């Protein structure tokens, strides 16, 4: 019948009909295109505030990681002759201190860079350790349910009702301060946040059809948790992780300020504020600059987390990812 019809409409025998008739499941290559990293990058560049935050964090990370090579001076080198030099000043020996020197004549910029190393790495390490512990317990609790879930979640409720900074002070008072003790205390205090989130995400996922399908296929519980549940909650957990890093940087500063964190002479932002406190009237930069570093880093992390949340939300992401239209013009 098709042939008859074609003969009618197209008398020209040289026209060859396209060979796509009656092909079951005919294939078209044109499907929903993937959201590539290019689209995300374009969206990042069009959002100026987030872009500045991201650049700031990159600068911070580079100066922290490369502090050993990039810092102009040894952060612990004491130079009593050149104490309390304000920013942008030159010593008699011809050394230029961009951000001035402190009460012992140490270069503030170099100390900030080494302090960044300590503060940021404690933030990350603390968030990673508490994340590992919390997410593991949270997924198992959410997937297995039952008694284990009850115990873990009651523990979480209990922990979250404790005043965390006070507990941290108390524990650090007993075991002593220092880098690794700080990470330990942060892990102990912050895993609950990850645990609660991982559990609620797991509860949402465990009723999805693809989890049912995996069970019908005979997958083991461990496989379902690692292969099917965990990868599907990476995006929200990344947002939480970013926020946690910011919180831990602030906590580290508080604890170090109170003298329970990193021990002198090592620099950390909190310690720098603590030791500069006595000279706040004569040398403003000793408190202001590390304070500014803490504030800006936490702010940048929060901004970035907010942006990540917005673009990873499948409902609202298109608003962020769509390039801004130049003019309200009709095509054609």
């Amino acid at each position: 019948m098709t042939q008859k019809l074609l003969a009618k409409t197209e008398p020209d025998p040289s026209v060859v009909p396209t060979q796509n008739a009656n092909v079951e499941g005919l294939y078209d290559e044109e499907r929903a295109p993937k959201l590539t990293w290019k689209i995300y990058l374009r969206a990042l560049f069009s959002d100026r505030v987030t872009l500045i935050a991201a650049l700031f964090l990159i600068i911070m990370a580079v100066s922290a990681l490369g502090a050993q090579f990039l810092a102009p001076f040894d952060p612990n080198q004491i130079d009593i002759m050149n104490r309390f030099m304000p920013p942008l000043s030159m010593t008699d020996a011809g050394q230029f201190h961009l951000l001035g020197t402190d009460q012992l004549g140490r270069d503030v910029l170099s100390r900030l860079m080494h302090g960044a190393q300590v503060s940021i790495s404690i933030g990350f390490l603390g968030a990673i350790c508490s994340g590992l512990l919390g997410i593991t317990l949270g997924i198992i609790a959410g997937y297995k349910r039952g008694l284990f879930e009850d115990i873990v979640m009651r523990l979480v409720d209990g922990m979250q009702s404790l005043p965390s900074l006070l507990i941290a002070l108390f524990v650090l008072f007993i075991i002593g301060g220092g880098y690794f003790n700080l990470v330990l205390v942060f892990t102990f205090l912050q895993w609950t946040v990850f645990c609660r989130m991982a559990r609620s995400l797991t509860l949402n996922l465990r009723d999805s059809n693809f989890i049912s399908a995996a069970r019908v296929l005979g997958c083991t519980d461990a496989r379902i948790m690692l292969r099917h549940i965990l990868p599907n909650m990476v995006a929200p957990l990344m947002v939480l992780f970013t926020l946690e890093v910011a919180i831990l940087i602030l906590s580290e500063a508080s604890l170090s300020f109170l003298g329970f964190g990193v021990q002198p002479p090592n620099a950390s932002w909190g310690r720098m504020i603590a030791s500069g406190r006595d000279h706040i009237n004569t040398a403003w930069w000793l408190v202001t600059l590390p304070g500014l570093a803490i504030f800006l880093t936490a702010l940048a992390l929060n901004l970035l987390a907010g942006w990540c949340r917005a673009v990873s939300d499948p409902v609202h992401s298109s608003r962020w990812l769509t390039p801004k239209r130049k003019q309200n013009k009709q095509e054609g």
Partner: protein
Amino acid sequence: MTEQQQAVASGQREVVLRAEQLGKVFGKTVRQGWRRVDQGVRAVNDVNFELHRGETLGLVGESGCGKSTLARLLVRLMDPTEGRVEVLGQNLLELKREDLRQARRRIQMIFQDPYSSLNPRMTVGEIIGEPWQVFPDIVPPAQREARIGELLQQVGLNKSDADRYPHQFSGGQRQRIGIARALAVEPEVIICDEPVSALDVSVQAQVINLLMDIQRDTGVSYVFIAHDLSVVRQISDRIMVMYLGEIVEGGAVDAVYESPQHPYTTALLSSIPVHDPEQQSRQVLKLPGEVPSPMNPPSGCKFHTRCPYATEICSQEVPAVTGDLAVRGVRCHHASTLNFDPYIEHITGRVASG
């Protein structure tokens, strides 16, 4: 009658799936004095059937009738509260964890929603190949890649699709991936839980054809759950109609469609909109109200609250099954006295006299 149906009717074929007095009560049983009282929702009650090799059993009913619960009981995503499920003579309910995992190979499931039934973080190749990570003996590692390509072609996709992610496919194509995943373990039975109801009309037919082709080629058996009676007629050999957790009528598909004996079956059949504007002047058996809550089911015959033919006996006595629901049977007090011909003339083509 096709050859296949004849073979089924004479019982020549091997039974691959058997359900015996299968029931599921959600909630708990509570002691009142010395009596134990069900305080739960009876979602599925007294379901018996045998499924033969290469056969398709259609399961029809409205939402809330327990058909999806039944599907989950059959693959043991849920534990029944009573009865047994046998796959190739092996009782699934008595198996230990490890044996159950092994037995799962025999019975697979295809889900309704093609969007939530595939893990969005795995590539299509990983999804289809996953069963072999669990049961390494099905396909040796060296041949896996080739086998994934074969499976993809079998369901009408391209070999190169193995590297793509599910969100790059349309609904119908995702459903094909779900079918390929089920086929990967070479099952004897596939439970299809509304596999085409989320698809566009133009794609539905492709998937139905695909399922029929696979059955012809591999001899797999289907339990096909749907609410669309036209689809069920197309694919099923036998059909069972469910209402509030119970099978109310069952039999060979042509027999049930052309001479239904239960008023509910008739109402379902006559309610289907017919896509022929010239056949519109016909009688429709309309049901008042909606399916009652299973929390508080009606006494006697569960259908009596909506049944136009209900009499006193229907609200008092639970109707016994006439015949065998798996072969040709009905659960109705008045089945023998009712004539439904006027309501199904759009199916039979017979115009009722008078």
